[in-house]
């Protein structure tokens, strides 16, 4: 196996009184598309944020390409949850996508025509060309998500982290986003996605990380995404949510 591109070593993090993540350890192989799965409150978003130093690290270590985060920042793209920003902010889709280039443009310099064109082609890729000059508050949830993804694309990063990119989007957007994720993967990029829909896991991801405050299971989807392992992660939840267990069992059998 080739050198891992992401190494997480005994990572832990907290929110106020609670330790939300403890002893998280895993290595990610280059070119993999990983779904981070776990129940609500399992620390999925926190894991991503902590790895990207957006949330303080309590203990442990994270390295990318064998280097600390701050040295390789530019090679990492992040798509936050759609709800994390104020969509009322007065700007248009193209402008938001151009923000993905700010690191390359350099601080205090203005974006040039080439940058705008680059942003435009990313929007086009996400099927959003016609909405380039649309006010962001007037985009639908799915369109906003596409804009966020386009912004990540222009960064031309080697590793991508996405926090629930498929939450609350329509089928068309879901397909468009998955298309792009697969494209990124075939271009040799490493992608980690927080995902909540168990039905589609096998279909979408080649690796699965089952998380519930620590890593319960991690590996290739066909080996890791088993009924027993899912029950491990969802634990008590699954027992009283009898209906869902049946659903999950069904989707695994097929």
């Amino acid at each position: 196996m080739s050198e891992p591109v992401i190494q997480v070593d005994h990572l832990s993090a907290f929110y106020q009184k609670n330790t939300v993540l403890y002893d998280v350890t895993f290595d990610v192989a280059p070119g993999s598309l990983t779904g981070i799965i776990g129940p609500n409150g399992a620390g999925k978003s926190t894991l991503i944020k902590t790895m990207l130093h957006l949330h303080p690290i309590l203990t442990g270590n994270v390295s990318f390409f064998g280097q600390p985060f701050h040295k390789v920042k530019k090679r990492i793209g992040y798509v936050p949850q759609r709800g994390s920003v104020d969509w009322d902010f007065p700007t248009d889709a193209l402008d938001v996508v151009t923000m993905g280039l700010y690191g390359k443009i350099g601080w205090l310099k203005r974006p040039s025509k080439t940058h705008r064109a680059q942003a435009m082609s990313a929007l086009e890729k996400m099927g959003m060309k016609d909405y380039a000059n649309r006010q962001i508050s007037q985009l639908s949830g799915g369109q906003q998500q596409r804009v966020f993804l386009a912004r990540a694309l222009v960064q031309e990063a080697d590793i991508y982290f996405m926090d629930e990119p498929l939450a609350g989007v329509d089928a068309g957007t879901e397909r468009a986003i998955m298309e792009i994720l697969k494209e990124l993967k075939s271009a040799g990029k490493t992608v980690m996605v927080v995902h909540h829909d168990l039905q589609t896991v096998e279909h979408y991801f080649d690796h699965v990380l089952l998380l519930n405050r620590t890593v319960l299971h991690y590996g290739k989807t066909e080996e890791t995404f088993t009924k027993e392992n899912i029950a491990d992660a969802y634990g008590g939840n699954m027992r009283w949510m009898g209906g869902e267990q049946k659903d999950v069992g069904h989707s695994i059998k097929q």
Partner: protein
Amino acid sequence: MWDTLLNSNTQWVLLSTTILGVAAGIIGCLAYWKRQNLMSDALSHAALPGVVIAFLLIGEKNLFFLVIGAAISAFVGALLIQWITTTSRISEDSAMGMILAVFYGLGIMLLTIANRIPGGDQSGLDSFIYGQAAAMVTSDVLTMLTLALLVILVVFFGFKEWKLFLFDRQFAKGIGLSINGMNTLYTVILVTTIVIGIQAVGVILMAAMLIMPAVSARYWTRSFLTMILLSASFGGVSGAVGTWISAMGSGLPTGPFIVVTAAGMFVVSLILGKEKGLLVTYIQFRMHRKKAKTRVRVRTGGVT
């Protein structure tokens, strides 16, 4: 009337309140999108004790030193708000309310003391409460102009960074923009704008200079840059018009006239503004209702 305007001191004062309005209009937009309008109110009130303490220490009314005193005291206020919010379960708006009241009370208390000492009542320190632009001398005007221009430049050179910082902080941090740095810079320019404004507008009404032009501008545009430019113009016009009116009578405070002018522009924007202004919203509602009615009529075959 024209005599007052032609008076060179009045011209200087007019220029400085205009630039102040422009700076306040610009910073107000940042405060608006940082969703921290109350912060400017808290910090301008928090500046008062610093002004009086600086006066008590140096014994004369020199705007430069008073502004430094005001800035220190406003920063202490900002730090206290942050400290209270992070270390206790008191929410940010309660903390701001507390700091606003306590610092203002302390300022008034010190002011009473300062007015009792010999020469203190002649100092014109009272003008810091409601603002007295006419009381400014040339050196005051120069101090104000320089600092206001500095603040304006900081926003324009970092325009792209401010936008990213206000829209998506986490993403900004991810691509290497220092959020702590931006927060500090924001507090510095906010406090600078406040302290240079309190001489002309007064601590009580300074916050209105920051809030009013920005909310008025919001009614006219969908672009952040245009919003800033509009807000700057609204602020500048309020500053100029308010000062001009107050200069026509003797001893009229400047602050209230500036704020009332700004409020007038807000009312016009609220009603006529093309982005969700009351009139436009009403007309759109009427048009949509008409359309919906026609559609219903068509579907029901003209029977209504």
